[in-house]
């Protein structure tokens, strides 16, 4: 039986290496300076890059973070500072429910909320969809990080005459600040790879645009459109884009894991 368990483990570990291996083999060759600084060329021609999607992803994820992070972190601090209150219990439960909500549903929400009202697709609608995904994620990791801070630290600060808010911000939050930052990075990494909520909000675009009120390109959208398109050159760019995307996501996940582990050596 134990042999079977070992087989199961090998089978479970295999896909990660297969995926990474295929991405490197098929994508690495297309990563060159052009890839990062040039716009796409017309279909059928070879060459070109994805600078429009890099700019689009940075702008949308940046906007989503500016809106989502303060709310998520604030809610996380609330839930850990007043853990037993009714609001904390409800918020925690709802955040878990939202974390399990399919991202495509959040896309439909952003469509009816913003795109349908404004009458056109926009990078802003995409940003809002990403922010909605980010808030519950950030709230839960912030809360988990603050829970790891020993209670004695809080008591010491209060005993020294610190006000509650000073204790929270300059002692408790400061102690676990690296943990909160890594949680934030993980959420940023997650939403950077999201495609479904952008399909009919940001829509995608072939032009380099910094106007968030207009349709915008994003790296995951490029992977989707090029992978399902008919041209070999598109497939080549899809692989390269996927490699860049996964490189960013994996590095951030790895950093998160290492930072939280070495610091607290606690659960996850």
């Amino acid at each position, binding site marked *: 039986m134990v042999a079977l368990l070992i087989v199961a483990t090998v089978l479970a*570990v295999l896909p990660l290496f297969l995926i990474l291996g295929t991405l490197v083999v098929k994508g690495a060759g297309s990563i060159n300076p052009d890839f990062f600084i040039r716009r796409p060329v017309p279909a059928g021609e070879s060459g070109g890059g994805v600078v429009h999607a890099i700019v689009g992803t940075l702008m949308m994820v940046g906007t989503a973070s500016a809106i989502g992070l303060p709310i998520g972190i604030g809610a996380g601090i609330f839930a850990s500072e*007043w853990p037993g209150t009714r609001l904390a219990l409800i918020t925690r439960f709802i955040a878990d429910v939202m974390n*399990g909500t399919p991202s495509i549903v959040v896309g439909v929400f952003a469509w009816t909320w913003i795109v*349908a009202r404004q009458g056109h697709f926009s990078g802003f609608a995409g940003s809002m969809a990403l922010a909605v995904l980010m*808030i519950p994620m950030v709230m839960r990791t912030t809360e988990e990080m603050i829970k790891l801070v020993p209670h004695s630290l809080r008591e010491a600060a209060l005993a020294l005459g610190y*006000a509650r808010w000073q204790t929270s911000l300059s002692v408790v939050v400061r102690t676990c600040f690296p943990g909160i930052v890594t949680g934030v990075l993980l959420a940023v990494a997650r939403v950077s790879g999201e495609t479904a909520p952008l399909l009919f909000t940001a829509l995608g675009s072939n032009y380099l645009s910094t106007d968030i009120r207009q349709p915008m390109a994003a790296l995951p959208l490029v*992977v*989707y459109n090029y*992978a399902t398109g008919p041209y070999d050159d598109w497939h080549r760019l899809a692989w390269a884009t996927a490699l860049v995307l996964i490189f960013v996501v994996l590095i951030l996940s790895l950093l998160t894991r290492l930072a939280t582990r070495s610091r607290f050596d606690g*659960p996850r």
Partner: protein
Amino acid sequence: MTDVTTSAPATPVARLQGAATGDRIFRIVLSLAALSIPILLGFLVWELIKGSRLAISTFGLDFLVTSTWDPVTGKFGALPLIFGTLLSSLIALIIAVPLSLGVAIFLTEFAPNAIRKPIAFVVELLAAIPSVVYGLWGIFFLVPVLTRTVFPFLRDTLGFLPFFRGTIYGPSMLSAGVILAIMVMPYIMSVAREVIATVPGSQREAALALGATRWEAAWTAVVPYAKSGIVGAIILGLGRALGETMAVTMLIGNRHEIATSLFAPGYTMAAAIANEFSEAATDMHFSALAYVALVLFSITVLANAGARLLIWRVSKGRPGGGAGL
């Protein structure tokens, strides 16, 4: 001593009052942040209902049990989508559950300490890969490999079953199920591992003392003890599989049809929304897709709430197992 008291900027009473005001502001600001999460969810549900009102009032609950999907004549029924979502998730669970439980049991009960964390970490990294990358990899690597090796093998050996008959298409229900299995495995494995780790050591020791082998101890004493938590982990994985969009859209073939053969293309709720929403031309088409989103949302909320409850019951005092995922 006198220096300290005279040079203090405010009297102790004034300082306490200042602190109380600060505390009040602090609490109000944070409560607003916390409050915005339930409000956001309420708003989301409201917008979904508003968006699907037209379809709800036209088709009612018949929407869930009829199969016509015709944007031209404006007749919509979501049965093939619901069927496809449930079937692809079921295939995913059939493949992923034994694998992830095997890994979880191996890691908690048998593996040497040195490799426990690295292996768990590698499997959990699968959860960080974007869905669209799974789709890309599926189209150009997994599906060609499956259609050349595993699918013909299944047809030859299990062809007496109706599920494994007929033409082998690349994009199919089974391809989508396989990619989903890989995607939900880290979630099930990670939560199952946490739950199994909370089983008291005395359970194992009692079984071993009665003469059980380590495998018998794990299977007869540890796993049953953690049963409801493991079920919770599986339902959590199910919740993920139900809502997965991009990889499934790219691999399932996108056909509004209920086929017996798993080699034939199908469709899921999430995939239909992803494919048709930006191209929908009529209000009714939009509304029908919003209705699909509402149904999908309700199913995943039920699955997730059930899973949380089960996990919470096992690891009492440690609510929110797997919250980081």
